[in-house]
């Protein structure tokens, strides 16, 4: 009975946040622990979906759509293609962890503790006590404001150009790296 009253006392925002957090963290744990590479990729998509839900609780609907398009639609599919290309090394019998698992676990937990201590000291700030109602101009025109800030020379026009050149260069570099080269095949050099 007390559990029922607890459930009914939750606001819709809390319900969405909790469900999206459970999806995000649970799927992330599946990614890190699962032996099957393909299942890990599917869990990664679920984790991205949970993050998109969190964006929606933060009134960032456009970013949630971009998350769905770019992460779930493009990056996850790219990872699945890479899994298919390198499929032969998926022996289930071997341990999924590398040779430095003990040291790696220690470093990860130590880093987590350092971050947690720093954040716990910072908590208690009064400025973030409750979610402030965002001014309607900022919220309802978020897409327009984002677009303007990308072309405004006083805002993010230069980083926008730099990032697009970076993306172009990275994609050309990726094609160059993955391009099959018969010339450096040692068997052909000997022939």
């Amino acid at each position, binding site marked *: 009975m007390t559990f029922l009253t607890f459930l009914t*006392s*939750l*606001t819709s*925002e*809390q319900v969405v*946040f909790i469900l999206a957090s459970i999806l*995000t*963290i649970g799927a*992330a744990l599946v*990614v*890190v622990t699962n032996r099957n590479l393909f299942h*890990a990729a599917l869990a*990664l998509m679920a984790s991205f979906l949970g993050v998109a839900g*969190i*964006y929606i609780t*933060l009134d*960032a609907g456009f970013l949630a759509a*971009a*998350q769905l398009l*770019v*992460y779930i639609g493009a*990056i996850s599919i*790219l*990872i699945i293609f890479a*899994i298919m*290309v*390198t499929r032969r*090394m998926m022996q289930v019998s071997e341990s*999924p962890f*590398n040779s430095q698992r003990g*040291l*790696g*676990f220690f*470093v*990860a*937990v130590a*880093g987590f503790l350092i971050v*947690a201590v720093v*954040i716990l000291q910072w*908590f208690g700030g009064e400025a*973030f006590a*409750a*979610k402030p109602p*965002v001014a309607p101009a*900022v919220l309802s025109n*978020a897409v327009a*404001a*984002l677009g303007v*800030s*990308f072309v405004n020379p006083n805002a*993010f026009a230069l980083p926008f150009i730099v*990032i697009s050149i*970076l*993306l172009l260069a*990275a*994609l050309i*570099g*990726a*094609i160059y790296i*993955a391009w099959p080269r018969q010339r450096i095949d040692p068997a052909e050099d000997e022939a």
Partner: protein
Amino acid sequence: MPPVTIEWYVALSVILFLIGSMGVLLRRNAIILFMSIEMMLNSANLLFVAFARYLGDLDGQVLVFFVITVAAAEVAVGLALIVAIFRTKHSINIDEINLMKG
């Protein structure tokens, strides 16, 4: 139940970052490493969006777009490297990729 404050988002982000760093440091498969790096970038994005919301400022969301772009570039180059390494070594086990070890 207290209302949803920024501490909730910070806690979620830190937990997601911890899981991602565990994946990078513990797993053997290079593709899992890339997935974990994407998760860590996602946790940083989460923090950007949360602070943008609580400060009522859109600049955090703009930065998230830049992070998404860099993540796309990174995963494209990284997966191309994995494919190239797999072609020469027939393995993407990071314990066996030790060509540049001193």
